[in-house]
């Protein structure tokens, strides 16, 4: 069962940008916001060489890893073809302008 945790107001994530959510264990989570104010959450670790996806350029429903330019789908965490790889994803929701993450 999901355990929803309050993270921050939506305003704290820049549009077409991301924030890092630090956890005591389990590694950082990257919290993305796109131009349509959709919010996505992925492990902050590119399946290629572990680059911090939160630092990448967000476009459409994709983020480009800052280290070697892999594109990762924000919805499913899958690398965009022809690259192959997968990045863990988390359920996320926005209610009344507040962002919640299922941990």
């Amino acid at each position, binding site marked *: 069962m999901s355990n929803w945790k309050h993270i921050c107001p939506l305003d704290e994530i820049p549009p077409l940008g991301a924030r890092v959510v630090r956890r005591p264990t389990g590694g*950082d989570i990257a*919290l993305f916001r796109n131009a349509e104010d959709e919010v996505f959450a992925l492990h902050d670790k590119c399946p290629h060489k572990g680059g911090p996806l939160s630092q990448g350029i967000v476009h459409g429903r994709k983020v480009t890893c800052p280290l070697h330019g892999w594109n990762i789908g924000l919805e499913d965490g899958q690398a965009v073809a022809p690259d192959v790889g997968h990045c863990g994803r988390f359920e996320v929701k926005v209610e009344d302008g507040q962002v919640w993450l299922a941990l």
Partner: protein
Amino acid sequence: MKKQKLVLVGNGMAGVRTIEELLKLAPDLYDITVFGAEPHGNYNRILLSPVLAGEMSLPEIMLNDLDWYRDNGITLHAGSKVVKIDRVRRKVMAEDGTEADYDRLLLATGSTPFIPPIPGNDLPGVLGYRDIADTEAMIEAAGKYRHAVVIGAGLLGLEAANGLMLRGMDVTVVHIGEWIMERQLDQAAADMLQASLEAKGMKFLLARQTEALLPARNEDGDMTARVGAVRFRDGMEIPADLVVVAAGIRPNFALAESAGLYCGSGRVRGIHVSDTLQTVTDPRIYAVGECVAHRGIAYGLVAPLFEQGKVCANHLANFGIGRYEGSVTSTKLKVTGIDVFSAGDFSGGADTEEIVLHDRQGGVYKRIVLRNDRIVGSVLYGDTADGAWYFQLMRDGQDIHEIRDHLMFGQNNLGDVGHKGENRAASMPDSAEVCGCNGVCKGTIVKAIKEKGLFTLDEVKKHTKAASSCGSCTGLVEQILASTVGGAYQSVSAADKPVCGCTEHSHKVVREAIFAHHLTTKEAVFETLNWRTPNGCDKCRPAINYYLISSWPHEAQDDPQSRFINERAHANIQKDGTYSVVPRMWGGLTTPSELRAIADAAEKYKVPTVKVTGGQRIDLLGIRKEDLPAIWADLNAAGMVSGHAYGKSIRTVKTCVGAEHCRFGTQLAMDMGVKLERMLFDMYAPHKVKLAVSGCPRNCAEAGIKDVGVIGVDSGYELYVGGNGGIKTEVAQFLCKVGSDEEVMEYAAAFLQLYREEGWYLERTVHWLERVGLEYVKRKVVEDADSRKALHARLLFALKDARDPWQTSREARAVKQFIPLTVEA
């Protein structure tokens, strides 16, 4: 809205490529139905020769298998030949009774081999060379019979002959002309090619006219039903169990003509189309490929067909941009171990000149034909490495008089490092490493090109990662691509190359539109230029952001989310996600108190690595992002500012100690360097920009490999531009000599402003100079004083009120977001 119906007649490379382009632009606009006479999906016809030669198999050359049609919702009638078009009812009918209605119709019926009207041309064992069925028939014959005769020594004929020879047949090539491949090669190159094919065992009969194909006789001397010999007009007869006729192709336009579409008369036959690839008769009907006659030319190579497909798709998608204005073509023979390249008009003439290199012993022949200082044709044999470069210079119509003296020796644009200085793709073994950054060897690239059906450099980059990091092996990868796909490869002229997959517009078009329409936001650019994606991608957004700001300084707002992370964090991201911080040291000068502040900061933030950079300053590596604002504050407090070591911007001005201290110094190099660096502070540019100032010609500051190099001499300064110490070492070129410090500032500023205004994003000064020519830059910067002063003034205006980005960021809200969020308990 109900979908319109699009019917494609002809399931080959041109037609299906058009559909692919259309699906990229408008995936849901049409219900698509495809008719193909052959019972297959779409395959790569160009690779039939390697199949014949036994180097590839049929499944390897499929481009679109049946799943592709299903996945894209396309109805495919394979093995169904369309025999009638009813233009009134807008309906096509196939031989097997299948019918389909259309709103728009695309004809791509291709061509058929021309079989000369000679007696015996209908005997079994006489084949054209066009499709899978022909190839299979040849392979079968090679297993049973001995003597093969190929009529026609053009590209296709020689490839067929080579394949049959490799399958063990005794092959004679018969040609009507004086030398082989006379449409692509001059006699010198043709003779060399013939000699090397003869060395492999191929026989030639030139200047021979075939009179008849004779049936074979059985042991009793009676005639059989199969071909057995070829007789020439001079009476000579040679045995032939298989005759392959490769005497040219004829556009397939019978279907179109029967529907009343104009197909020309006399010499130029084919479905006549306009620049939008619409038939001149019926605007609902489009046509592409070998069946088409465009401006009086029917193309038989695949590259032009792809260009047609692109334009046609654009119009089918109702975008209505782009015209097909004809193609310049090049040829490459696909015979393993033999390199031949030809492009354009090599026949010469009264108004042309030529440069020739002929090394018969070494097996190398190169001929470049020039008219008015522009390349109009080239023929290369043995060493075709620079074919793509010559071809591009020819297509771009570039004035070559500046590079004339080394034109023949090639572009040599391949990197110096990472691939052992290797610059000939053909001679490299499969195991040789091509891309030193990503560890990709030649075999991997060739395999990907063949198996995935790749045609462009971008596709190869995406699939193999070769040439996708530093790019120094791009030339090698292009060569491998060209030699693997042969004539299908067309190097894209840089001027036309789209910025990225989000658009079909080039950097040139985007930049001009931003200026012409006074666009100041990325959204306005996306809208004006019909971007395909809602907010671009990591390639186009940074470029657009740069063009906006450089075109409309103080007006367009910087968009941090369109900047690479380094320019957002004003620090360089490292492999572990930490950052490196480099404070500016003007002209490489520092003070004890600055050094003390750096040492204090390094200790306070537990900086694991402190390193001196090549740009004469100090790098603090391994800093956590959340510590950046604090370390900036400490460095700012000591009077230091960002060194922009991370940006597409001014980096450093390197200096020697100059006349201030040096016993050889003629000019005050440090003082000059500091003044230049202060003038250029915070200058955003298409790519990084580095300067150097040396106080005498000993040039200890290495000004010869900088974007702008200044060398002090007794009477003033020499200015050099376009140097580069990176991937490929490029020596800066002499721009001019000036007398005073003020002139150094003015000329350097004018040069850099011209680069800022006209360089494409991620283009270093050397590549921009290569594109526009040094002469052009000299006119704007050196000869025309008004132009120089205006450029200088525009740069100073753009840099007016420049602020330290660390200081600015510390005050901004965005910097608070450097701190990670935490999960509330």
